[in-house]
């Protein structure tokens, strides 16, 4: 089974009992993707698969052949090369414990790719599948709106 993770080809024997989350965390050591509930209810394991945000815990490893996966590790490779969303999360104070952050950023990235100029309501709706217990969401929503603006600015 061959698939691309963060622009690199990977080849693995797919175990039928494994999820994409198991593959990322246990086989590829990409622990930036978090395990919160293992049943698709908290969003902490969100990654981008073929352009769409998915819960990695709900994707079977056997479905991966030929697919393109982006995880939080693929977004900003170092502190001076952060994605605008990551920068905005830091600047707006949108990170507290940080456990939900990778999942929310990946959800937001996939969302902004489709909807580059969202309203606050649309942002709230987009991340409603990602639970955060620390921030009360205000600063996360502000960060995503600020990140959207910055992404737009960089494109022009």
């Amino acid at each position: 089974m061959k698939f691309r993770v963060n622009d690199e080809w990977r080849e693995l024997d797919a175990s039928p009992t494994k999820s994409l989350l198991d593959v990322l965390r246990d086989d590829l050591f990409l622990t930036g993707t978090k395990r919160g509930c293992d049943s698709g209810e908290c969003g902490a394991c969100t990654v981008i698969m073929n352009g769409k945000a998915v819960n990695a815990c709900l994707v079977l490893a056997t479905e991966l052949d030929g697919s393109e996966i982006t995880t939080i590790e693929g977004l900003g490779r170092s502190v001076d090369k952060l994605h605008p969303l990551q920068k905005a999360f830091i600047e707006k104070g949108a990170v507290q414990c940080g456990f939900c952050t990778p999942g929310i950023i990946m959800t937001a990235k996939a969302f902004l790719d489709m909807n580059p100029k969202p309203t606050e309501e649309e942002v709230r709706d987009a991340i409603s599948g990602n639970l955060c217990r620390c921030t009360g969401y205000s600063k996360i929503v502000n960060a995503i709106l600020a990140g959207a603006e910055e992404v737009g600015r960089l494109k022009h």
Partner: protein
Amino acid sequence: MYIDDLKFSDVLYGKILRSPHAHAKIKRIDTSKAEALLGVRAVVTGKDAPFRGGEAIRDQPFLAVGKVRCVGEVVAAVAADTKEIAEHAIGLIVVEYEPLAAVLDVMEAVKPSAPLIHEEMHAYAHMPVVTVVPHTNICAKFEFKQGDVEKGFRESDYVFEDTFRFPTGHHCQIEPFGAVAQVSVNGKITIWVANDAPHRLRKDIADAMGIPFENLRVICPPFMGGGFGGKGGLKVETVCIALAMHTNGRPVKIILDREEVFMASLMKHAAVATVKTGVKKDGKIVATHAKLYYDTGAYAEKGPTVTLHGCESGVGPYKVPNTLVEGYTVYTNNPVAGALRGYGLPQSSWAHESMIDMIADKLGIDQIEMRLKNALEEGSINPTRGDILTSVGLKECITKAAEAIEWNKPRPLNRGVGIACEYKATKTPSGSSAFVKVEQDGSASVITSAVEVGQGIKTILAQIASEELGIPMDRVIVTSPDTDYTPWDASTTASRATFHMGNAVRNAAKDAKVQILALAAAALSVSAEDLEVSNGEIRLKGGDKKMTVAEAIRGKWKSGLTVLGRGTYYPEIKGTMFSARSIFYMYAAQAVDLEVDPETGKIKVHKVAAAHDVGKALNPMAVEGQIEGGVVQGLGTGLWEEVLYDENGKMLNPNFRDYRVPTAVDAPEIIPIIVEATHEEGPFGAKGIGEMTLVSTPTAVGNAIYNATGIRLKELPATPERLLKYLKARSSRTEE
């Protein structure tokens, strides 16, 4: 890097077999089939680790011995080469139970006829501040008393009394609980765990096992994925140790799944509170008697001190001359309840802050005016402990929250605002120690056991060290706890870290700075008093730069050396932990603007204004983040969150589908308001914030519902189902 991100070669995976019964004798455990399974390296039951632990009362076995006291209690555990083998092995263990009568309601559990949950309670070791009631299910009782409450009621024009129930709930940290334990050949135990008090954990385990501190090392990963009070005490740590004692040095890792986190980590206390208040016609409170019952579940955990703090704030933040607060921590056969942000206060607030509104309403006094008339202020006497209060920003909190929510603005039917306010102690006395080391390149490290739970303590401590040392913040690093290297800290709880550890770090930085300036003074042949340091540069006061911090160190020790600063903080207050008046008190008022749909009972929260007196906000953005997060947790408590059990004590909704945690769509606009009544002993005037942020929210929700609909709830959460029942009754009354 969180606990489950730590990788160990040769690691074994642990899995726990849990009790299906709320209360049962263990007749027999047969582990032979599990032991025989290929890949299983250890199987343990209660007899393999005959230790009992617990912060307040040493009542909880590492694994059940003789009987189980709640569904989810640890009965046996397995360590195996893979998670799958461990899971399989658990299924091969046979346990024979003899079910016992269980008691699941706190008010039933205090009756003399209730089944006794801990027959040996009177023999348990406990904190000095705890008074047990032998041969009952009351594992701790507390009393606070000022003046003469009966005389106060006689002098009152009106006396009101009512009873309020508060639901249990869960912290729902998004990171599940987990730990890794390893026992080396010399018997030393190392445990990696995201625990909010690594030194307390070491002490609790050492006390339980009868081993000296040096034989136990607790290492915290750099981050904890949410704590809110839940990740303290003994959770998976003890099971991990029990297994690791039988694996010939191989580390054992246990990460709980979400259902286990819900069912068997820690709960919020359900509570029943009765409050009786006497007032004069003008609204002045003369006397308050509160009686609080906290359901602590099968083991005491921090229940006794949760009760104590709830009682201490049990009459509200008011000048009440006659008070009596009685609190009871009660064993039931429910899962263990312990610390959850607010530490017993959301429960007591729900009673006395609902009561204040009910009184104001009866007397025809505005609810804000009623509060301002009685509110604590600078120099007031603490109504429960009797100490004189200083650094009191309560009235400013009330007026600012009311103003921000536009209290007096007319609102349509079924829309309303409600307010609640509170004061809270921190656990006192408690101590913190820290080192600050300054290296020969002018960088600094803060060596501390404070735990980063997401509140930003690493940032705050770096700010404090940077400010005091005169070294830029980007040249300061802050360690994570490792009890072999980082010094004692009581805990990262009780909103105490900025104040206590902040002071310790500040003192350590001062100590280091004195040494650095002495080096510079000798090199420059001037007096150290004439020197100052900022931005890593040393200068004559008001003059030009003379040398850098790095040059001062290297100038003296040309082959290199480290400057070591040490600092401690322990408030000058007598007594054992929790027994004394608080070193500081936090004050807050929160106002909620919401709308009730009369057809569905659904509530839409439009806005919350939350004003908090934090002494001095060292990092305003972090304070705002605490307020916003606490408010949304508080809305969850008030509106949606309730753990449900069947009649046998089994949890019915141990997942995020059926236990409703607020999402981004549920969260309203929040206006965080920072009030600064500086504290003379706080670092740069700071007090604390974290715990206070969800104390008042559920009650403000209840008060807003009343103002919107005329429906006075005495139980929470205000789910559509619950509200609809009252709305139907209201409309049938109107029709009549």
